[in-house]
């Protein structure tokens, strides 16, 4: 679970770190990815295990267009205006999903991995969860590789450090931003496809993840991609252990408490400075 949180948070943190825009619609991107995985499976019989590139592409496109149509106009606006726009957008997306597909929980029946378990000694690991964990880690590594090795990735890093200087070097900041938004979307695109194998799909299914992702991004330190992944794993563990020892109703309380406590020692996040 932790690595899925990590991946969702990586997507959010990428947008947040590079553009200083809090994307409140992030959870809705995740929800839409889960819905597209659901529809791919029930309409075309494509298992989420193989359809994830399609979901990723869809959400990438959604993120790209969100930037081009909405965020572009507010990215330079003062303070909280961008937040206003993304929050409004999240309302639109969530209720659009409810309008089109109703508020019912949907489960993906009979995927290749569902209800299969792996037994390692006393440990029982559900295969869907295992696939989600491995997929998330691979995607995070891919994002990491992309950012540090490709031209576009370096352009994103440069723009995040100093936009004006990057523009003077001939980087098209507008294109970089659009791409970053798409890439942030692609992260949840993968996460949503993987989650849909063992998590119910409904219009609110992204909401919890976005609150957790905010906390994880902050815990990792803003602008720190690997920090977000590590913080995600920590929070996933905290949730599981907290749920086990204190009861499931308190598992998220533990997660939020850990954030508050860690912040007393490291006010700029675990891996930020």
């Amino acid at each position, binding site marked *: 679970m932790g690595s899925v949180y990590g991946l969702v948070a990586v997507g959010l943190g990428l947008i947040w770190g590079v553009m200083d825009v809090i994307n409140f619609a992030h959870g809705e991107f995740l929800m839409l990815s889960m819905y597209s995985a659901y529809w791919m499976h029930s309409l075309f019989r494509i298992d989420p295990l193989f359809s994830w590139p399609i979901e990723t592409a869809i959400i990438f496109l959604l993120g790209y267009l969100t930037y081009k149509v909405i965020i572009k*106009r507010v990215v330079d606006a003062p303070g909280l205006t961008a937040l206003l726009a993304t929050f409004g957008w999240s309302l639109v997306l969530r209720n659009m999903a409810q309008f089109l597909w109703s508020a019912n929980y949907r489960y993906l029946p009979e995927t290749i991995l569902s209800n299969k378990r792996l037994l390692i000694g006393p440990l029982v690991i559900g295969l869907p969860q295992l696939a989600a964990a491995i997929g998330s880690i691979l995607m995070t590594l891919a994002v990491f590789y992309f950012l540090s090795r490709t031209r576009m990735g370096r352009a994103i890093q440069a723009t995040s450090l100093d936009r004006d200087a990057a523009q003077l070097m001939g980087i098209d900041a507008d294109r970089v931003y659009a791409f970053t938004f798409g890439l942030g979307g692609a992260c949840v695109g993968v996460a949503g496809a993987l989650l849909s194998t063992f998590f119910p799909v409904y219009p609110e299914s992204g909401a919890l993840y976005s609150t957790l992702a905010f906390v994880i991004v902050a815990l990792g330190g803003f602008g720190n991609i690997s920090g977000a992944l590590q913080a995600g794993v920590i929070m996933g563990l905290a949730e599981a252990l907290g749920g086990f020892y204190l009861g499931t109703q308190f598992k998220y309380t533990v997660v939020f408490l850990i954030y508050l406590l860690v912040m007393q020692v490291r006010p700029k996040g675990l891996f930020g400075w």
Partner: protein
Amino acid sequence: MNKAAARERNGLIGLICVLCLLPLVTGDVNIHHVMVMFLIYASLGEAWNIITGLAGQTSFGHASFFGIGAYASAVAYFRLGASPWLGLIVGAASAGVLGLVVSYPVFRLRGHYFAVATMAVAEIVFQLFVSWSWVEGATGISIPVAAEGLATFQFHSSKLPYVYISIAVFALSAFVFHYIARSRFGFFLRAIRGSEEAAMAIGISPSKNKLMAMVASACLTSIAGSVYAQYILYIDPFMVFSMTISMKIVLLTVLGGLGSVWGPVLGAAILIPLSEYTRIVFGGTGRGVDLIIFGALIVIVACFQPQGIIGLIKSFGRRAQKGGMGGDDRSMRDAKASA
């Protein structure tokens, strides 16, 4: 008192007079309902504006104070048989204490780290209330119906008393904001918003002033929460502690204009009737059409009027009187001139 402050005060008094007269002109229950919601949210916006508009500390967790106020008055009557008014006062006090205790460590954080921390605190409070059986946990509290009257804080035959009580709460919040914004304390807060280091260098204690602002903001938020609970007569944690409440407060203030006494009024005057009427007109479908329209309008306003509505009005004013400065700058200049 300088001219700008006097103008703002007179404007507020005028607004409150108009608000008092409005429900007498029309007997429409829907309009009374929208007025109550508008006034409660405008008060919440004013309260939030103290900590975020003046002191520059973005709080995403004001639902916790709102919920505490709502629960305090509901529990006072439901569990203890005490007057909801007592609950209102106790609620405001405990919200103040929560603001103090929680903010003390949280104020060490800056910027987004602070905002996320307020969100985390609000989520913790929310989850505690969900699993706290003494306050009925996730089921929520239906406040038992009592005889009508000011003492029981329940009115069944007409919404008018609620309208006037919320006008009083709004007046309280708006005037507290007005006086804080014009006081020495308000200028301290603005200095902190500008730069904590610079404020410290001229002898202002950021932690002390931020704490005081948070306590004031928390108390006012809690009072509005109590009135809300008594008006709706049913509360559960999902209604009063959710992120949606925190975000609604943020939205309407930012939409109206941050740091100005008129911001929350304008924002609430636009958002609340919009959300209530779209809910009345489209809400019956049960498929969220009202919220699609609501969200789309927020996006449109944010895209085309990023300064908030007040920015729009200011830019008109600037065009009218050439070379004039914006409200906040002008008031600061006036204050400097009169000092």
